[in-house]
């Protein structure tokens, strides 16, 4: 039994991978354009809600409550799901889950499945496992289809093909769908995908989905999507298999009133995404006759075990922290060597693997704090990055210059009160590398990309410190 997160264990260290990707101008242009668009839309619809901060706080508290009582909520979910006619399976790790899923498909004598976007299945390398068992999986999300046909890897958790532009997509579709006259307008490409997949939706008898939320009180599962491929996959096949990471549980149906406001606005900058599908068990003549849920651990209990960083599991995979991250916006997702990229990937991937692999990822950040600011469930990513760096240094596994930098930090920490803001710490680490207020050459981790773009240095005094100082001066 061992945890696997895609191919993260064999991936190159972040700085090496990043260095190569930074040479790719096209990639950087595609990335900048896509992340700029989503950020703009997100900012607009978030500003529209006067209670955004209250929603974030409530979401954080619900998620922390769930972790505390996870065992009993999982029990309740299992019981309700069974009551509704579903079958529940438990999987300690990716290979156990893959085995369960392949087993169900084989029992039905089928050799094809349609899939709606699930990052969890990418984490499990489910497609590889199915293919090895003689089963053909068809990805049905447009971006996932681009990735699958292009024999590529996802680079973003919400828009996995954002590193591809229209002419690259056209080339992939022309070749794999045998459409030599295909145009390159997004309309043409989307229509080609509709045509290509329609027949599969109507023919293939087994569907596989992930879950954005699973409700303990009712045994319901929620799939959030835009294209309608999710609705197809969860309601047309005869058999439906849904993979649920154990942290996806919410106590009550009503808790959706928080998360269905936060997720679409954070993920795609929409007030609400076009479609949500919610169901509990099979439902007579409507939809699949057989419904399976696979509850997956695969290292999530490793993450839970450290109270300093367990809130990593609160993540609802909105991708806002990726779009906001100056490092991600330069390197793209592939540099992280994991299906989970960006700030959340930098903390989640190593923790799932009990810090045994992907040790360079917690250094793939300038600790600027933008990720924390946009996170709809208020995960303090900078604090967790620092904590994980410390854990890696403690094990003696960190590269030499990180160890030196972290020793200095450790010294500062032991001499003062616990530093509450990541900024202070960032300043300690960056000082020797600063030149004219721009970061010139960060310790090896960030060297790869600072040579391509000057990163604005963290100011010497943070706003909050400045405010406090100012307060002292006037005696207020």
């Amino acid at each position, binding site marked *: 039994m061992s945890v696997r997160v895609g191919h993260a264990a064999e991936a190159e260290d972040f700085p090496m991978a990043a260095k190569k990707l930074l040479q790719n101008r096209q990639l950087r242009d595609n990335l900048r354009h896509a992340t700029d668009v989503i950020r703009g839309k997100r900012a607009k619809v978030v500003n529209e809600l006067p209670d955004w901060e209250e929603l974030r706080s409530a979401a954080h*508290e619900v998620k922390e409550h769930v*972790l505390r009582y996870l*065992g009993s909520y999982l029990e309740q979910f299992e019981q309700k799901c069974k009551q*509704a006619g579903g079958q529940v399976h438990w999987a300690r790790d990716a290979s156990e889950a893959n085995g369960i899923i392949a087993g169900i498909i084989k029992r039905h004598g089928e050799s094809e499945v349609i899939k709606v976007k699930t990052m969890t299945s990418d984490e499990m390398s489910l497609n590889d496992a199915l293919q090895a068992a003689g089963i053909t999986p068809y990805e049905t999300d447009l971006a996932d289809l681009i990735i699958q046909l292009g024999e590529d890897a996802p680079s973003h958790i919400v828009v996995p093909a954002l590193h591809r532009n229209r002419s690259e997509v056209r080339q992939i579709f022309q070749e794999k769908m045998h459409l030599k006259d295909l145009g390159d307008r997004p309309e043409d490409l989307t229509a080609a995908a509709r045509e290509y997949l329609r027949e599969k939706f109507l023919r293939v008898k087994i569907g596989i989905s992930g879950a954005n939320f699973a409700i303990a009180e009712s045994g319901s599962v929620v799939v959030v999507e835009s*294209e309608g491929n999710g609705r*197809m996959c969860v309601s047309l096949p005869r058999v439906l298999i849904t993979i649920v990471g154990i942290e996806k549980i919410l106590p009550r149906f*009503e808790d959706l009133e928080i998360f269905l406001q936060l997720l679409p606005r954070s993920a795609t900058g929409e007030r609400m995404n076009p479609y949500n599908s919610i169901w509990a068990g099979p*439902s007579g003549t409507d*939809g699949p006759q057989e419904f399976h849920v696979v509850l997956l*651990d695969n290292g999530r209990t490793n993450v839970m075990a450290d109270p300093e960083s367990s809130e990593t599991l609160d993540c609802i995979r909105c991708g806002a922290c990726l779009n906001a991250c100056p490092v991600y916006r330069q390197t793209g997702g592939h540099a992280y060597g994991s299906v989970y990229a960006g700030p959340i990937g930098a903390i989640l991937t190593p923790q799932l693997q009990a810090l045994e692999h992907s040790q360079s990822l917690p250094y793939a950040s300038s600790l600027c704090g933008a990720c924390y600011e946009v996170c709809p469930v208020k995960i303090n990513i900078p604090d967790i990055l620092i904590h994980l760096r410390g854990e890696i240094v403690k094990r003696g596994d960190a590269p030499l210059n990180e160890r030196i930098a972290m020793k200095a930090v450790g010294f500062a920490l032991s001499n003062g009160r616990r530093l509450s803001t990541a900024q202070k710490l960032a300043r300690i680490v960056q000082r020797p590398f600063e030149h004219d207020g721009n970061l010139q050459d960060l310790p090896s981790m960030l060297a790869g990309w600072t040579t391509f773009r000057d990163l604005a240095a963290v100011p010497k005094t943070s706003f909050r410190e400045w405010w406090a100082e100012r307060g002292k001066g006037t005696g207020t």
Partner: protein
Amino acid sequence: MTNAKEEIMRRIQNATHGLLERAREYDTISRNYIQSGTRDQAQRIELFCDRLRDYGSAVYTCQSDEITSGIANLLNTRQLSCLLVPSGFPAQWLPREFEFISDHRLTNEQIGRADGVITACALAIASTGTIVLRHSEEAGRRALTLIPDYHLCLVFENQIVETVPEGIRAMSTFSLAPITTISGPSATSDIEMTRIKGVHGPRTLDVLLVGGLNV
């Protein structure tokens, strides 16, 4: 070898020790966000229509005693002739000059051959322009509103709530039925973040907003 569930439960047990103090009890979670709206019905309707138009959906209106002619006008405008309806759909609302097929175990292929589908909904949410379909009831089976290229949905004015929390609370009363929420037609932004309407679901969603009393 212990079974998977026992082992995962044991791991959780060991891991939750450190989490004891920090987490709140369910009832003390702070819910200081907005839980209900302040708009009157006319303002709610206006907001809902604004949102729908924003999504590119057309909104038509009629009174509750004009549903039949409302539907006929719309189908003429759209030049559609053969539509599906859920099995319990009130026959008196359907204009005679069109063909309607009631869903009695239609196959997916039969569903795919129709020009479109007409349904009602369980409720609607103004602030997000969301229509909530409760399946196998007034919205019919899920395949009905999914496979055809055209969906006409009847929304009664008094079915519109203002906020997402009000909508979710109403949905929680039928949480065991399959539910689909629809906020504008199917769309993707996967290619260069250009929003394209109509990937897999119906490419056109029209709403017939019915005033007067609910039926």
